[in-house]
Structures are given as C-alpha cells and as structure tokens.
C-alpha cells in the first residue's frame, strides 16, 4: 500500500464492515450538534468525521461517510467533499501507529531529513507506506506547529519533540516492544522553555 499521502487521496474505499456509532460517540454527537443552531446541524460534519476516524481505526471508510450523512441528514457527496479536503482525515486504512514527520523549514533546518531516514529504516517502510506487520504508516507532513522544538514527529495523538536519530530509534523500538514512551521533548525540556 503505497502512493499518496493517505489524507490526500480522492479515492475512498469500503471497509466491508458496517459502521455504527459507539455509545460514547452517540453521546458526544448529541453534544456537538447542540452547539449549532437548528437547521445548521450539518456544520457538525468535521467533528463527526473526526469521531468516526477515531472509532474506525484511524481512517474514514465509505461506511463512515454514509453513517455521518445519515446522522446529519446531508448528501453523502457533501461529507465526501469535506473528508477529501482536509489531509488529516485519512481516506485509506493506516497502520496502528500513524507516524507524521514534520518536514517544514524549521524542522528541516534542524535535521528532519535524518529523522525521516531513521524512521523509514526502523519501521521498514517507505514514505506514505504501511509496514508489513501493519504497525506503522509513515507520512511526511507540513508544519505541525511545534517549530521551537523541532525536529518533531506526531505518532497518533502524541507529539515527540527535540528529536535526534537516537531518540527517534528509541521511540520506534519502544512502540515495537509495547513499552511506554515519554511524550513531548526528548531532551527533558518542559514545553518550549529555553534549552
């Protein structure tokens, strides 16, 4: 499975399984929709896409789109348009850990190329690819907003900052072995305090 960034593809696919909202999500949906005026429920499409992605192994299947369209009573194509517009909605399956490497100028100046190399080597997969054991999908992304702590990567919902080749390798190894990782700066900085 290679080719495009999973969030920048216009081709959606079916997962083959029925998608229905979990109880928790149903509760959140009710809460989210209540924030919009009556008749404007469709505005909730983005948070719902996010919930669906979370519930559906980190990607948006056609089943998700159809469920969202039904929930918000809007045309399926409109949901598809939104899901395809934003790169953070994955339109094809990704591995258990979605590794997003920031490659924008500040991180790049601080050596994001080497981080990319290390990650590709350690996870045994190319950019935009998923590893054979389905543990990792590696993608390069534009600025994730932690420039003062570059180079940095995001794995699923966590930021890992102030990386070098060694700390990057360790993070990947820990994930492979199921060990916990330190989130945030790998040099012990709190937030982005002076180094």
């Amino acid at each position: 499975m290679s080719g495009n960034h999973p969030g920048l593809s216009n081709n959606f696919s079916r997962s083959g399984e029925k998608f229905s909202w979990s109880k928790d999500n149903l509760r959140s949906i009710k809460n989210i929709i209540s924030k919009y005026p009556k008749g404007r429920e469709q505005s909730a499409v983005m948070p719902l896409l996010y919930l669906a992605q979370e519930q559906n192994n980190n990607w948006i299947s056609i089943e998700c789109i159809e469920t969202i369209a039904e929930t918000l009573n809007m045309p399926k194509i409109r949901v598809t348009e939104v899901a395809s517009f934003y790169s953070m909605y994955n339109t094809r399956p990704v591995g258990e850990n979605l590794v997003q490497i920031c490659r924008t100028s500040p991180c790049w100046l601080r050596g994001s190329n080497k981080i990319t190399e290390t990650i590709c080597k350690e996870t045994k997969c190319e950019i935009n690819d998923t590893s054979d054991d389905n543990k990792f999908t590696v993608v390069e992304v534009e600025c994730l907003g932690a420039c003062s702590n570059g180079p940095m990567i995001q794995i699923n919902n966590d930021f890992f900052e102030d990386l070098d080749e060694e700390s990057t390798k360790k993070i990947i190894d820990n994930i492979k072995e199921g060990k916990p990782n330190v989130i945030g700066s790998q040099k012990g900085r709190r937030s982005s305090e002076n180094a």
Partner: protein
Amino acid sequence: MSDDLINIKVNQKEIQVDKNLTVMQACEIAGEEIPRFCYHDKLSIAGNCRMCLVEIEKAPKLVSSCTMPLMEGMSIITNSEKVNAGRKGVMEFLLINHPLDCPICDQGGECDLQDQAMYYGFDKSRYKENKRAVDNKNMGPLVNTIMTRCIHCTRCVRFATEVAGVPELGMLGRGENAEITTYLEQSITSELSGNVIDLCPVGALTSKPYQFKARPWELKRTDSIDIFDSVGSNIRVDSRAEEILRVTPRTNEYINEEWISDKVRFNYDGYYQQRIDTPYIKENQKLSISNWEESLKVLKDKLKTLKPLALIGEHVDLETGYAIKKFMSNYGKDNVECRTDNHAVLESLDSYRFNTPLNDIENSDLIILLGTNPKIETPIINHKIFKAYNNDSKVFNIGENISLNYKTEYLGESLSSLNNENLIKALKKSTNPLIIIGSAFLNKIKNIKTLKSIFSYADKYKVITKEKNNLNFLNPYASRVGQLIIGNTTNKLCEPFSNLKKDNFELVLSFGSEHIANEQFNNCFKVYFGHHGDDGAMGSDIVLPTPLYTEKNGTFVNIEGRPQEAKKCHNPIGSAKEEWSILKKLSDELSFDFIPNTFEQLRSELFDKHPILSDYHEIIAVENSTSITPDIEFEDCKAEYPISNFYMSDVISKNSVTMAKCVEEITSTPSLLEKSA
C-alpha cells in the same frame, strides 16, 4: 429617485441601477461584457474562476465582479490596462493544466474557454512543468467526461444541487488535486442531467451520444418545441443533411428557462428506428408493403360505406387535428377523440390546462400534488416546484406515496384526503396555495360532480380568487390542450373513452394513438397514421406513414395554454406524407368539402376559426371559466399514474437506444429505486 436605485459609473459612464445587483450585472446593464466561467445567472454565485476581474476606483486590488455588491457612487473600470493584465494572468493559470486538445474536443467551436483565450490568452505557454492529468469519471450514459479539461468552475455541482435537486455531484480534494465527480462515480439520477453539458464552459462534460458526431458550424439550426411532455420546452434541433444530430434548449424565461429534460435532449436516435416508411396493407393477417395509390383506394372504398371514428395521439399538432376534425365533420358529430386515456374534462379551458403561469409556480407557499408525479411526467414543472420548495413552500401529496427530490407530506391515496385536517389548517394559513391535479386521478374520475367539487374546493380555500386561478390540471401529453381547444373530443366530457360503444363505429382512424389496439375496436376496420411501428400499427389493416414533428411544421399548445410552433427540420423519411394532405386527397375523391390546398391555407383557416391560437407565445385567456357550485363531493378513485418510466414514455423514446441505456444504468441505481415501477 427611488430608494432601490443608486448611481454608479461604469467606464466613466453614469448609470442608475438597482442597488441589489452585483458589479457584473451593473456592467452588463451598462453594455460592458465581462468574461466569466463560473458565474451563471441561474445558479448561486461561487466566485472561483476569477475571470471577471474589474477595477474599482479606490480599491487597491482588482475585484471579482460577480461577487461584489454595488455601492453608491462606485466607479467601475472594465477596460483598463490593469484589468486586462489581471484577466490575462487568470487565463494563463486556467490554461496551465488545460490540455491543448481542441482539435479532438467536442466543445471545440462553441467553447467559452476557447473564445476567451482568443481575447486574453497568450500565444505560448510559459509553463515548463508537467501538466496534471485526471481520470475520467462515470456520470452515466448521457454525460461524457474528460476531466483533464475541467477548470473547476463548479457550475455542474451547483446545477445538480440547486436546479436538478439531486446533490450527487461534488468537488473532491483541493488545489491541484481537486476533481469533480459524482458520489462513488454513480450515474446522475436526474431527469435534467443533460443540462450540465450546456453549462460546462469547457469540454469536460459533453454529450455521450453526440460524441465525435459533428462540429457546431456544420449544423443547421431549427427552432422547435419539445413534444415529449406537455410543458412545451423550447428546443433547438441541430441537423446535418437528413439527420438530427443533437437537441439543445432555447432560453424561454416563461417556460423552460434554460433547461430541457433528458428525454427530448437524448431520444433523437429513436426518430430513425422502426420507422414506417411506406404504406402497408394487411393481407392474410400479415402487414405487407403496399403503395399510396393502392392503400388510399382501399381506404376510400371503406370510407364510403363504414362509419368512422378518429383517435388523436399524443404527438398530433393543431393543424393536423384541425384537418382531421374538418374531414370527420362530413360524417357527423362526436367522432373525433383525443382523450384516449379517459381524461375527464369540463367544457372550458380552465378545466384541462395548467392555469398558473409556469414561472409563477415558484411564488406559491403551499402546493398540493393530486395524483401526479411531476418528476417523471414533466421534469421542468418539477424543477419549478423544487424552486417553490426552496422558497419554503410546503408540498403535500395525494395518490401514491411517490418519492420526489424534495420532501412532501403524504396525505393518503384518495381524493377525499383533500379534507385532511393538517392540510385544511395549512391551507387556511397559506397566502398563495396551488393545486396540481394530474392524470392519475383525472383519468379515473367518472362523475362530473367530482370535477366540479375540485373547483368548489379550490374556491373555498382561495386557490381560485378573482385575481388568480391556481387550480392546475396536468397531463403529460403535448397534443392534449390544443386538441381540446379545437374541440377534438366526443362531447360527453366525463364519459370515459373506454365506454365508447363499439357498435357505433365500424372504421377507426388512429393518428399515432396506440389505443387503436384496444379490445373495443376488435371488429372495426383499423387505419393507422403514424411514424413508428408500435402496437397500434401492428394490429391495423392499413398503415400509412406520416412525418415526425421534426419533419413538418406544426403548432402545439403547451400545458399552460401557450401556442408555439415546431418547425420543419428536414424532409420526411421514406414516402411519408403529411396527414392533412392525405385527408385532402381522400376528401377530393369522396367529393367532400375540404378547401385548403396548402399547409399555409390550412393554418390560416385554423386561425380564422380559432383566433386565440394565432397569438404565438402568449397564454390564451380563458373566455368562460367553469362556474362554481357550493357542494363538495369526491368520488372514490384509485390513482393510476400514466407514466411509470421517464425514459420509456412514448413510442419514440421506446425506440431510442440511448433511452434504453438510461433505463439500464440509471433506473437501476439504488438511489432511484422508487415507486415508479
């Protein structure tokens, strides 16, 4: 000065315009043409092509005129060097990814991009990188896609959503990756889908059946009328030699605006299939080829002894109808019938036509559909109802619980559902209610009281007032209103056609009416005048070839009572002869009184007899409206819809390969699996 007018300057010329207009509209009023791709006056404003840039004094940058509202004292400049440079820049960007395939593009010669590139394009490209290529998308059997040519104006997306009412098209991705597609590349399920072809300013969406057929400058244009439903949409028929190659709409703001249905746009290949090209006579239970001399001789002998009845089909023009009436008057009264589907009518015009002018439907705030499925019977009227619906009109439905592209409240299956409490409540609140009663009920009503009751009901709830009549009768046939106006009906108005006593007639002349095959005529001698071999022709004793509406001139009165002319496009196929000339010949041989020698004479005689028909394009005024009685009593009848399949509603469409493909590919799409079967 009125409050709504403001003073502006366009290229230093001072004008007064409505303050609610946009800069582009004001420029047009001032006579300045603004180039555009995404702006279309029937669609919402998108402002994404940026071609319509103009300069506004004191504004630092060029602005897109289609999205810019007017302000008092605004000074607009459309012809400066800055504007020209801006538009040239936009054009250069548009052309970056546009392929240079004009020589093989169907849009070539009538392409907005091509035309405007003549004014604003550079003669060579500065772009050295790779052009993008986009996979073509499936949009069904009618719309061909070459998506690399797309410039993302989103006119098609807005049309599908706002006009056709089927939100199935969309733009996926963004920037370089933006692509127009239908949801999961399914076929568009609209009856108006062909209009995206006209809307597309480039060659991305073109007609599949017309693909690689002709260039626009080779075609002969003939103005005509859509006869495949009763709306009378204005069409333009393009032909080369003796063949029609395509049909496109003509703008008529009162009727079809800029749209036509897919049926008339694409069924023209059916014009040439299964044509009756020569007279046939039945010998030994089999139709065999004959000639005019022989067949007319046999017919003449029969007409000397047998008592005839004439049936008028759904595609018969007024002149033919008049000639038939004139001929049949030699045999007495009440022997011509156009209501072959048992259509119940009263004497006056307002009991069988659409009394609300079509472009007024959108102003209604409550619409009752009584036994009609406008989506497949008359897609243009359905679009107008959809417009009303978008203006917050409520739509109620009585009859079958049909699914339309807007929400309706279903009240029940019989006419008595008109007394539904919710409906009465809504009617009392409504300021401009409208009733549309369709053939599903009209063809079932047997009691004149029921029809009169509908008038009383309409009167009671202010559907009919002194100023307006919003009680509308809708039938899907192009010929019906006109034929009823000239009186081509047996006089017993609510009497069903099927009750006609078979003993009274011994000879049936059918002018394109398949009802000649009805059991009630089993013992009659049958003569079929028609252009296509259908059940009517197969069972007849004599079959005479007549021209199609595109092969002769003719007048049709549309459903709202507006006479319009369909013009001859090319000569008839085979040895087909116009009906009136056949009847003229028979009259001469039978020494009947039949004066017209030419079609023009026939037409002027028709207009002399019925002067109201001579005023083309104007709605006929009602002379004697139906008198209203106070009692309301509805008979119990079950709705039976006249058309179950939009793409196969008449003999021509049934013979069209394109329509057959539509049935296969579109009606089988799950989203259209509705109660039409």
